[in-house]
């Protein structure tokens, strides 16, 4: 599903990437450690995390992840947003906590997958 559309569904702020108009995700992985994020990242995986630092973009970039979803309504730094734009990853900021955000995203992606099937 298009990350912009996914953001609207969970009432998240959306910071689009520069390169791709509509990055898409089919899976979600939520974690608060870098090792878990990188070990489970892929070009189809939206990474959801309570972390908020520039290394997140490095992980997304290395694994070709379409985007990052920060949680708890945090304000991403200007540098994080700028780096995300450069690397082609979108950023979402969910108003919910880590687990609730993950649950909502999984539900919407599952519903979309069921609709496609």
């Amino acid at each position, binding site marked *: 599903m298009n990350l912009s559309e996914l953001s609207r569904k969970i009432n998240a702020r959306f910071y689009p990437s520069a390169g791709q108009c509509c990055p898409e995700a089919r899976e979600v992985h939520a974690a608060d450690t870098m090792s*878990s994020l990188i070990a489970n990242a892929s070009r189809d995986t939206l990474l959801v995390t309570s*972390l908020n630092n520039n*290394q997140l973009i*490095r*992980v997304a970039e290395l694994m070709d992840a379409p985007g990052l979803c920060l949680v708890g309504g945090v304000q991403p730094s200007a540098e994080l947003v700028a780096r995300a734009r450069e690397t082609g990853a979108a950023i979402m900021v969910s108003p919910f906590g880590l687990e609730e955000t993950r649950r909502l995203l999984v539900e919407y992606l599952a519903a979309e997958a069921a609709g496609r099937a």
Partner: protein
Amino acid sequence: MITLSYRISGGDFDTGGLATRQLKEQLARIGVGAAAMRRAMIASYEAEMNVVIHARTGTLWARLDSGKLDLEIADEGPGIPNVALALREGWSTASDKARAMGFGAGMGLPNIRRNSDLFDIETRVGRGTRIRSTILLGTAVSAAADLAVGFEAVTATQERCRKCMRCIFACPTGAVRVHAAGPDIRTGLCVGCTACFGECRSGVYGIRETAAGALPTPPEEAVLVITRGFLSSISLGGADRVLAALRSFGFSEVRLLEEWTEALRAEARAAAVSGSAPMPLIPPTCPAVVELV
């Protein structure tokens, strides 16, 4: 063999991961497949961040040889007093600063080991640590080379050439020709491995900017030839499943080397009898190149 090296600054979280990113760009140009790339990125990033978190400085080396990628990360740091403990999931000595950034979960070394076909660690307390990770590339790189898919990213500035001929011997696919005017790259054979870059001391070779990062696109009718040994080395519930998986990569046919050799032999025999071949047959040592050398 292609060798790449990158410096890593200990304690610098801003540039942490940069070496791995640069490695990724090079591996993408060479045509390393997605699965091997993914494993390489995880192993390299975890090892690099270990240097950033624990050491003063370090170096990442990547050596790409036939069918495998060797990563070696050596640092000048405190070393590891108990390797068995360090390899245990959840054990970490990372600083509070690193933990606040999401590192220090004790999954770094286990992640490297899990994504390596061969893994080795050497450490001396007070001196440093050296990690070696080997990732077998499977068919991805060799298939790209075999397919001769027309990689057009490598450029040659002919006037710089000193006719040393090193590039001819370095090129694994025979894509480089050196004429009186200078080198010429047969784009139909070039796989963009950049071996010619490493050998040339005159700066003849470069990357076309618009093509940087582009990967070879397999032709529509690509046949993958594998050995029986390769087939039997993958135990996934039968040869049919492995063949189906290989076809899903985009190959129109997957054939065994033995039967392919027999088919080629039959075609060559028929062509020899009829006196006409459908395409020129080039012996392993091309007389034109020998004469030029």
